[in-house]
């Protein structure tokens, strides 16, 4: 793959914020196109893994038909990576905390530890540890 992903946890107690940084792997500069109108990144690539290594199934899945498609084309380099922020809210719900993202929602158990990564067939990001 021509690029690699790095993720960083910037979350607070109520806000789920993960910064995703895309950098070229080999070339100095790389043409990079990004569009996420249907929030498929959150729905398809973001993986939340519990302590046992199981990938969590979303509690809610939302299919979005956007009014218009928007895409972005940039040249990325190690000095100028492309950054996308996955943003959501964390809402307490009894023994759980609901993670609400635009296209998916998860129920996470309070006091448990989760790992977060971005994963598709070819690319895997670093993994973040997330204590609820």
């Amino acid at each position: 793959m021509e690029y690699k992903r790095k993720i960083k946890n910037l979350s607070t107690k109520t806000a789920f914020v993960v910064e995703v940084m895309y950098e070229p792997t080999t070339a100095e500069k790389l043409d990079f196109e990004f569009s996420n109108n249907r929030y498929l990144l959150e729905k398809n690539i973001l993986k939340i893994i519990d302590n046992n290594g199981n990938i969590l199934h979303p509690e809610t899945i939302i299919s979005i038909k956007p009014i218009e498609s928007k895409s972005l084309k940039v040249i990325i380099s190690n000095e100028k990576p492309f950054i996308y922020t996955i943003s959501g809210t964390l809402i307490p719900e009894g023994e759980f905390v609901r993670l609400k993202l635009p296209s998916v929602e998860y129920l996470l158990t309070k006091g448990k530890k989760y790992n977060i990564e971005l994963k598709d067939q070819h690319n895997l990001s670093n993994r973040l540890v997330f204590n609820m």
Partner: protein
Amino acid sequence: MSKMNDLIEFLRLGRRHDEAASKTTVVNQTKVSATAIDTNEERIIDRTDFNNSNIYKRIVGILDNFGSTHFYVLPLSNKRIFYIKLPATNSGNQYLNLEDNKSEHVADPSLLEPIEINEATNEYFYDMIRREVLHTSEILEETNVFLDIVFFNPEKINIESGSYEYKYSKPITPLYKVLNMLFDIFKYIISSIVSSFLLAFETNKNVEITVRKKGSIYLIPSILVVDEKTFCINYYYTSSGKKMFYQISDEDIAIKLRFDDKYAFLSYLNATIFSQDVFNYSDTGNSSRRFEFVENFQKYIIAPMERKILSGSGYSGDFREAMTTLYYLTDSVALSIDNNCLWRLFEEAIRIGNFANTQHQASENIFIKLLEFIAEKETSKIVFLNRFLQKTEKKITYLEFLYDKLDGDNNTQFVKFIHKIWKESIYRETDPDKNRFITAQSPVLLDYRSSKKLGFHVDNAAIDWNSDSELIEIAIDIKTGTTYEHTTYGLGQAPNTTTEETTVLHNYAYHPFAPIVILNADNPTFILKDKEQQGELFTILPAFVLLAREKKAFWENVVTAGEYAIDIATTLSGVGNILKVGRLAKLAEAGYTFTRTTAKVATGVKAFVGVVEVSSGAGNALIKLLDINDTDLGREIARYLFYLEMLSLSGELSVALHNGLKKSARLLTNSKNKVKIEKKLDELVESGKISSAEKEELIENLKKMADGGYNPNFSIINEKVRLYWTKYLTKKGVVIEIGTEEAKRMLNKRNADGLFIMRGYNSETNSFKERIIYLHEDPSTSAFLEETYHALQSLEGVQMYKDITYKGTLYENVDNWEFLAKKRILDEAQQNGISYEEYLLVEKQLDEVLKNKYY
């Protein structure tokens, strides 16, 4: 300057005062230098003495009155006597002694030494001690007193008997002045080409002037109205003053002006007499000529007008003539008109109700002038203001009626004027114990906040006029002091959390003249600022002015935002009332059909796309529909009307506006609204508010305009297909929300056309508890089908992501649901009636799904 203007300037009553004043300079020296005119000896005079006109007598009035060209000095052994020559009379060589102002007979004029008057007449004065005439280059500080007499020499001002054109200012607005000027140019060009036109256009000479020999004349003329087309002004020689009235003949008239137009006659009198500071219409002092002049003006002009109006003949020509006459009257003259007559004009203006400024008459401007006259005369401000609370035949208060009728600057002037009068009335009392209009429902202190951000006026209130209760309703958001955190999320950006203050909505209802106090610091850009209260901490205003601010801000925002304001504007309360009195309403009321052409500019060439036409009948019916008792539908009607209003205000229709209009029409003609609108139109026909022809015109108009679909180029889901899938999915437990408030909220939050949500995943059964479809009202075919297919995919357990080979190419990790749904839409496009443009869009989206770029 034309000869007519030269004559006016010469005869202007205050001319010599103005000339003397313009030469006056402030001098600080303690001494005044002067020269004796007969010996050329210098005299140094103490300024204090010089300012004493009993010692140093001013003679400018005498010199001017008699048109003196020379002083005459009689040298005697013990003194020298200074004279000026008096006009020739039967009694022979008459001279005026400058020492005592008495006329004397000089038996042998050859003894007199003439000294020419070379300097300005106000630079000469008579020294009562030395008994000599002195000249000073320093200007006399003393206010000069001029008699209403001047020496007239027709040759000196180069005027002779003949017909002249007198161009005077007419009561038309600047815009129409330009139009009239263009028309004049057009006439000139035509007349240059076609000589026969010349005669036709040489009829502008509206005044006949007859002048006689030179001589001293009275500046106060006598006036005579012969008939409706003959208005005479005569200037008499002063010599006529000694004659009995039966001895006076045409020979005594130095200048005779005969106007064939009343308004030219009035303009002339304004220019020469009424506008002059030295003339007081209500106090003519000891001058019998002034008294007689005012008496005649009252007799020939004011009294007949009062009689016609107060007799209540109802003849509209009398009313129009009186209103036009008002325009030509100076304030002091107009104030002599009977107050009942002015009020009658006011009532009649409202009854006729036509205030529009036209090419021929600035009716609005004249009406404002009438209000000013009435206010000036009406000693009780409460009586004045209460008159505005009376109701018209249509059962609305004069205040609301006039507020709606008066446009632009005149509207602002009207509001400011009412505010000014209101401040002088007891309505402005802010003590709740003394003012019954201050109640719990109309508190005097209002936490109203307004400002201007990025060119837009914003405030924390929705203000509207309730025509039924005649109260001004104010819904205001007031901050509570408690805060909450608000987080916004953006693509590629960290979430932005801001702290916002919780607000509570209060609903109040004010009498239009109830007092409201707002803090100036909270309203830095208040549009209708009261200059008198600008330095204060707060402004006191009647509720009516707050309403006016809302309307003015609204239109300023529309001008700033253009077509983008429509969506915002139609969600505001009060927009209906604005539209009811807008340009479209006025055109419809006047029976006009308006058309606008749609044009788009492509590579510098205008391509015409279509024409929008709205008949007066359709316009009338639409405006009546604004009162429909259905919030959503009412808003859509307002939106449609708003588009039309924008079109009526702009010369040409943009493609974007055209599309917006089509979309709005499509919404109004969907199955649900169509039934509601037709029902309401039937009710309006039954109650006689609109004719059945108007109803048909509107239905036809909407149908024509709607041709093109919700998205101008998209189809709307076929009713049969919609019913089929709705029944099927509902039976399977899928909730379908189309056009509901929740649907709007969910869709707007994600900027989406459609959503399918699966909620409540159960890992044991591997299924979801709820399935919900959200769509906008009247969804396009593709949006409806896509969400339907997602629901089916969910029910059937179709795999969500997989590698797909399509048209020989392998695509990895594709959103399988999206792919299958879009593919099916394209495959079944023809049978579902999808438009060509919609097909292209879905095809593009399918490509995007395959080549996903979200990484």
